[in-house]
């Protein structure tokens, strides 16, 4: 076999976040610093017979404020909320990267913005109009708002991306698959720049009923790794990175935030809801191998940490299987304890948290962790974040269906 050509290095030069605890990276990070909870009383639509009455909703997002300046403002204003979040986060990321738009080499640029479910809020409205209101037709833009790739299309249109543009879809690993795929495209020479991440906005009556029927939502709050954890809390938002080939970034004098040095993905191929140790373990190992580092090189791990009974225990055991004794020395936290579970967008928002941890030498806490589950016996940085020099940070995303994706971020190349 021919010797494999050396992969190109990939760095992060921009990031954007829209979350229930902050509508940009700075406010989001401040929220994590304060261990602020984004969980609040469910609202914005008739609650009818719902039993779960909390969620981590974004209640202060005014699309005009965030998107009015868009070149194609009319198009984006007519889009679904999940596309709004994606557009706002991408705008932040592209601005931070300082890239000229439209891109100088548009065919060498990718836009991979995923969504676990697409425009479910639009979907429900359309079906209510048809089946309950007996309207003669759905709103004419219903279809375009619903499709799961519309956020990637909107972002690509605004910034003039003409290379690979599509959405990934892998439930709670969606953003991580998007970022990892974009990273591989750059590493393998297909493109030089990528906008990558995911967006989600599905909180409505039907979604709440569907999640309620699966019996995995907490009526009280999101308390990962805690003895009293009793389910996850639905969230929403977007997390998007600008990835760039290292030499490309260096040549234009870009401010490099981090290196995206490892990506691993596996599938349990076992069950839709019960996670396996093997799949997550192998995904983490692949990501470490890809980054060409040892487990002991990692200081911070942003856990998938959904606060479901099964995930947190399984993830703890998978981490032990990868890290051995070092598992007990790792600072591990689930930032979902603050921003809730934004489903497909989770890995994007959590990637931002990992990069900020590298940048600031401070790791976010797991909020609400007063009494740990005895079966979850690692250091989850309970309640208060801490100063910690981080050389490498790992971000785990383990989705329903056993779809696992893991990223490893490192300090900018010296």
């Amino acid at each position, binding site marked *: 076999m021919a010797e494999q050509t050396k992969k190109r290095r990939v760095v992060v030069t921009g990031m954007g976040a829209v979350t229930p605890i902050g509508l940009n990276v700075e406010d989001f990070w401040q929220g994590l610093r304060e261990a602020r909870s984004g969980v609040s009383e469910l609202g914005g639509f008739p609650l009818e017979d719902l039993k779960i009455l909390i969620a981590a909703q974004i209640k202060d997002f005014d699309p005009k404020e965030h998107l009015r300046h868009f070149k194609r403002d*009319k*198009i984006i204003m007519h889009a679904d909320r999940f596309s709004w979040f994606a557009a706002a986060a991408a705008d932040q990321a592209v601005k931070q990267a300082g890239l000229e738009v439209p891109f100088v080499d548009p065919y060498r640029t990718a836009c991979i913005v995923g969504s676990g479910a697409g425009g479910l809020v639009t979907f429900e409205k359309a079906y209510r109009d048809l089946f309950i209101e007996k309207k003669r037709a759905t709103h004419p*833009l219903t279809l375009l708002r619903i499709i799961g790739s519309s956020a990637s299309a909107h972002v690509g249109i605004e910034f003039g991306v003409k290379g690979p543009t599509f959405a990934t879809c892998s439930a709670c690993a969606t953003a991580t698959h998007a970022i990892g795929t974009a990273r591989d495209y750059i590493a393998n020479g297909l493109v030089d720049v990528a906008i990558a991440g995911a967006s989600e906005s599905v909180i409505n009556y039907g979604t709440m009923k569907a999640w309620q029927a699966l019996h995995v939502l907490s009526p009280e709050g999101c308390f990962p790794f805690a003895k009293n954890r009793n389910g996850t809390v639905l969230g929403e938002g977007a997390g998007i990175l600008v990835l760039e080939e290292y030499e490309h970034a260096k040549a234009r004098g870009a401010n490099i935030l981090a290196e995206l040095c490892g990506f691993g993905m596996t599938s349990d191929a076992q069950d839709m809801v019960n996670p396996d140790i093997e799949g997550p373990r192998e995904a983490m190992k692949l990501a470490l191998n890809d980054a060409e580092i040892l487990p002991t090189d990692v200081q911070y791990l942003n856990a998938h940490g959904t606060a479901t009974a099964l995930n947190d225990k399984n993830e703890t055991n998978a981490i032990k299987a990868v890290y051995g004794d070092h598992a007990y020395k790792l600072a591990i936290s689930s930032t979902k304890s603050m921003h809730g579970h934004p489903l497909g967008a989770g890995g994007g928002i959590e990637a931002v948290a990992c990069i900020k941890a590298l940048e600031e030498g401070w790791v976010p806490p797991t909020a609400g962790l007063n009494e740990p589950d005895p079966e979850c016996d690692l250091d989850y940085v309970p309640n208060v974040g801490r100063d910690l020099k981080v050389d490498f940070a790992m971000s785990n995303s383990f989705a329903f269906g056993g779809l696992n994706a893991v990223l490893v971020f490192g300090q900018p190349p010296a």
Partner: protein
Amino acid sequence: MDEVATKIIDILKKHMKEPRDDIDTSTELTALEIESLDLAMIVFDIEDAFGVEIPYNANEDAGDFKTVGSVVDKVKALMADSGSDAASASA
């Protein structure tokens, strides 16, 4: 201008990024800088306003809809066919 024309022009203006005040029945639709998505919404709003169904297919040449006046004529013809009248078109 009659009520149908005034209403149609109002709908067109609603969907224009920069609404103009010089639109009359002779104005060509292509002069209005209407974006692709807007056309679907304009058709929808006109159908709602006049209680008609416009046989418009985005795949076909919209020969009937060259000017604002041609849209007005088409809507009036459809209303006559369906027996509705402008007086009931306040929805």
